[in-house]
């Protein structure tokens, strides 16, 4: 253990939970904006962040009447930060909704296999939106088709109607913990990813590592 390790330990312990949550939320936002597919909803993190935002809004509401210039400036700082947090949360959720809209049936299937993928409200949005859409399609044109051609999720005949995100999309990523050798399926590509490295790789090759937090997308 050298001086760096000792320093790292001290700083890591001294970092307050709020700052860790900000780092985590920022990372979740970047990942969701960059990754081709939707990722599991960070339930506990979002709960903590939303609760803090709610309290901070209450504080602002309480103190808005205060005309003391000192408190006034404090409020400006608090509100500026609040807006930044709100932007992060909103952009994160909207990026997820964009994915829900793009691949509804595929995500519905994945969520059935892994119920931590979506939050309850996202699941509700997905089911209701999809129900409305298919109802609309049926009443406007699908009902006039032959029975065999009316489905929206037909997978027979070797062709699936369910659109999937392209899991082999190339992504930029940064290695946070040693991961060792990574190979790309279907090619002869094998390479070693070291901590601190930045790589352009297929999403499918590092997906598991990103979920474990060993690699982050940038």
């Amino acid at each position, binding site marked *: *253990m050298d001086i760096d390790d000792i320093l*790292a*330990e001290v700083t890591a312990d001294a*970092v*307050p939970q*709020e*700052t860790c949550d*900000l*780092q985590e939320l*920022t990372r979740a936002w*970047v990942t969701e*904006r*960059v*990754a*081709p597919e939707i990722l599991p909803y960070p339930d506990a993190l979002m709960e903590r*962040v939303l609760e*803090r*935002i709610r309290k*901070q809004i209450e504080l602002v509401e309480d103190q808005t009447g205060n005309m003391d210039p*000192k408190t006034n400036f404090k409020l*400006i*700082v*608090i509100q*500026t*930060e*609040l807006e*930044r*947090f709100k*932007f992060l949360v909103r*952009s994160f959720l*909207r*990026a997820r*909704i*964009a994915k829900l*809209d793009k691949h509804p049936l595929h995500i519905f299937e994945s969520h059935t296999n892994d119920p931590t993928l979506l939050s309850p409200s996202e699941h509700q949005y997905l089911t209701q939106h999809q129900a409305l859409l298919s109802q609309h399609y049926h009443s406007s044109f699908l009902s006039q088709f032959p029975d065999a051609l009316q489905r929206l999720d037909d997978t027979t005949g070797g062709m699936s109607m369910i659109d999937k995100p*392209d899991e*082999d*999309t*190339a992504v*930029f990523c940064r290695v946070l*913990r040693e991961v060792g050798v*990574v190979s*790309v*399926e*279907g*090619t*002869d*590509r094998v*390479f070693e990813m070291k*901590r*601190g*490295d*930045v*790589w*352009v*790789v*297929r999403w499918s*090759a590092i997906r598991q590592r990103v979920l474990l*937090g060993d690699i982050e997308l*940038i």
Partner: protein
Amino acid sequence: MALPLPPGLTPPEIAFLCEMELVTVISRQRLEGLELLGGPLPPLSPPQRTPLPLWLAFLLKRQRRANILPPPWLSPHSLTAILDHETKHDDAFSPPPRFYPLPSNNTLPFSPPFLSSSTADAAPDALPYHWLELGEMLLEAAADDFEEPDNVRKLLRGLREARMAKLRKGVEVLDAGGGVRMNGVGGMEVGEGRAFVGGVIDGLRKIAASREQQKKDRDREERENGYPGTADDYDENEMDMQ
């Protein structure tokens, strides 16, 4: 309601990330500590130096409540040395700052913009991840805190051009499998290169898709038969070379 943007961060989003970078601030007046959402803010008292996120530093700067101390790598001397390195080694970017050591208790590893790579104690000889954005923003909002702002601006432009040329040249090594190492690349450079680099890799992959599928099937078969396919693979590679 859904975000209408394509995957990948847009320049304003990258700037937003960059505004979380910590910079060193010298307060001009006393300010009480605050409980912020991203952690507590220490009380400020002149002439103490405090690391603060960039957005807050700008807010204080705009109200003339503080001065910003530019990071050591953002000085003409350091930038000249880095630019020199960039032009001499045209096969890679100049090395990034040393990645901080991993916390031993295996908690969440920190990464930019949450490393102190732009405070007054940062390494003077390496460009951090958000170098371009941070440099430009500091020059715009706090030019009077620099000793030679015009010189710094000129050097930043030189660096940007030298590095963009590398990014463009790097396209020659791209292939369908991906797996390109880009250590030292900056945030804005990733944003600019993403569509092109990603597009080339994805396009090449689609062209080679059927061959890849064949290899996947063969690999799977070999795994199932327990047959070591290395000799075969080797032969095939040699064929490809000819």
